[in-house]
């Protein structure tokens, strides 16, 4: 007890002369351990949190930016010759300036309600037309796909009957459906939507079915012991247990429908981003095509992330 009390007393005494700071001899003494602790913290003062977060974000994005810049530089260098078949980035910028800078061309705003007037519309309008078709076709595919997936996942008989059929049909390329679709629906709009539907539904069905089949038997037993009715079993156990699989299917499905719609619109014409590409090719506006490619890539990426994000949110909540 005594010795520790002394030590404390010593320590608390030591800094006093130092802070007083008058006599030269005292200042040269090595500072005691207690006194060094606060001065140690000072140099490692942490940056504000926002700056730190921005730094981390920059570190994550920077490699991508460098790669893109490098690719653009190589592209520019390789295609800068006057007769080059592929336009260089700077040529795209000058020749397609209107397409890049006015994506909403042809849209008139009455208050906040937009309306499209005229046939020559901006690229964003084409994208939105395509997105609306995807929304309808993919929405139908999601509903029907989850329903059929649950059916063949749950019933062995249905699985035996339908699975071989699905396995064969899913390998048919989307465009192969187009002639049939056009013949049956006669019009561009419904046959495009059908094409999206028939493209997106297979991964949804097969992943949902796999998810239902993968429900651990103990969860089923919990449902049986609790005597849940089929609807309760579906909402309380099957759905939450299958959500991750379902969204894997939906994510693949949305990606495939985006692939299919461009092809479908190219063939059919009229409106949509696929038509835009075909139209620019026919008008020898290759620079416009390249701008459209960038848009398609970014929108497809966004769709994938949105579906993935919804899936994660639901999985957390359910």
């Amino acid at each position, binding site marked *: 007890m005594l010795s520790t009390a002394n030590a404390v007393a010593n320590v608390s005494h030591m800094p006093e002369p130092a802070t007083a700071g008058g006599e030269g001899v005292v200042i040269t003494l090595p500072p005691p351990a207690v006194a060094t602790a606060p001065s140690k913290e000072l140099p490692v003062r942490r940056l504000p949190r926002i700056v730190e977060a921005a730094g981390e974000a920059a570190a994550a994005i920077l490699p991508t930016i460098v790669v893109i810049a490098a690719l653009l530089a190589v592209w520019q260098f390789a295609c800068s010759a006057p007769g080059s078949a592929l336009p260089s980035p700077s040529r795209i910028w000058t020749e397609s300036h209107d397409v890049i800078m006015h994506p909403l061309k042809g849209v008139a705003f009455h208050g906040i309600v937009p309306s499209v007037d005229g046939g020559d519309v901006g690229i964003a309008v084409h994208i939105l037309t395509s997105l609306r078709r995807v929304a309808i076709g993919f929405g139908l595919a999601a509903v029907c796909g989850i329903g059929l997936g649950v059916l063949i996942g749950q019933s062995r008989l249905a699985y035996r009957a339908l699975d071989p059929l699905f396995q064969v049909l899913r390998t048919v390329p989307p465009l192969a459906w187009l002639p049939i679709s056009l013949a049956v629906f006669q019009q561009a709009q419904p046959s495009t939507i059908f094409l999206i539907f028939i493209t997106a539904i297979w991964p949804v069905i097969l992943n949902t079915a796999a998810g239902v089949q993968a429900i*651990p038997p*103990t*969860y089923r*037993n*919990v449902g*049986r*012991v*609790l*005597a*849940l009715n089929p609807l309760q079993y579906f909402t*309380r*156990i099957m759905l*939450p*247990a299958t959500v991750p699989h379902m969204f894997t299917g939906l994510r693949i499905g949305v990606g495939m429908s985006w692939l299919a719609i461009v092809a479908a619109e190219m063939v059919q014409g009229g409106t949509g981003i696929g038509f835009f590409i075909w139209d620019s090719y026919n008008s020898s506006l290759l620079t416009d095509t390249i701008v459209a490619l960038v848009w398609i890539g970014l929108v497809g990426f966004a769709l994938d992330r949105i579906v993935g994000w919804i899936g994660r949110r639901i*999985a957390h909540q*359910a």
Partner: protein
Amino acid sequence: MKTRSYLALEGISVTFPTRKGPFTALDRVDLSIEKGEFVALIGHSGCGKSTLLNVIAGLTKASRGVVFLDGEVIDRPGPDRAVIFQDHSLLPWLTVEENVRLAVDQTIKSSRAERRDWVRHNLELVHMGHALAKRPAELSGGMKQRVGIARAIAMNPRVLLMDEPFGALDALTRASLQDAVMDIQAKTNNTVVMITHDVDEAVLLADRVVMMTNGPAATIGEDLRIAMPRPRNRIEVAETREYNHARAEVLHFLHQRFSNPIDQAA
């Protein structure tokens, strides 16, 4: 006509179809359990203990024979026979409270507030009242099984079925859960059928230890009554003659009369 026990298994045989032909797991099992009795089923792996429990639960259909509970024939699963599974089988997307709530909503018909209080009361009983909003993934194995127990007893079952409830836990956690079960059992006086591999667990917890012969075509080999007074304290009973005698009997049955089939083969 003879009077039946509260839970009566009469001539239960279970045969599974396999590729090599039918496999008889259980052969003419008769077992009578009185109301409020705690019965431990013990036997080597693969002796059909779990099959027998599943027949009582209604999860497996008996090929022959009948199970009566309180005079009624059992032919399907139901919440009057709550099961505590070895892997606790809590639903990972529900919180602790919601897991128990799901079971209570299915079995207890009363007002919302009363059901909520009942859920919390049962979670307090297993000392999990502090973790209502946690998800199973945030709990230790022992805590998960405590919630599993709360879920089962909250259903006010006529029979509580435990399928190796503590098999996946370490020895110390297991002991504390055994104490919890004895504590609850003293308050609720449930009728319990518990499967176990653990001789000490069987003797400490049960009123009767039912020993099963090795499969295939397993049946009941011996039925030993444990006449130790309750409440039982694991340290005190370990020194009593009854405890050590019962323990020796069970060990003798399991390791001499019906030793592990794998050891026999070797």
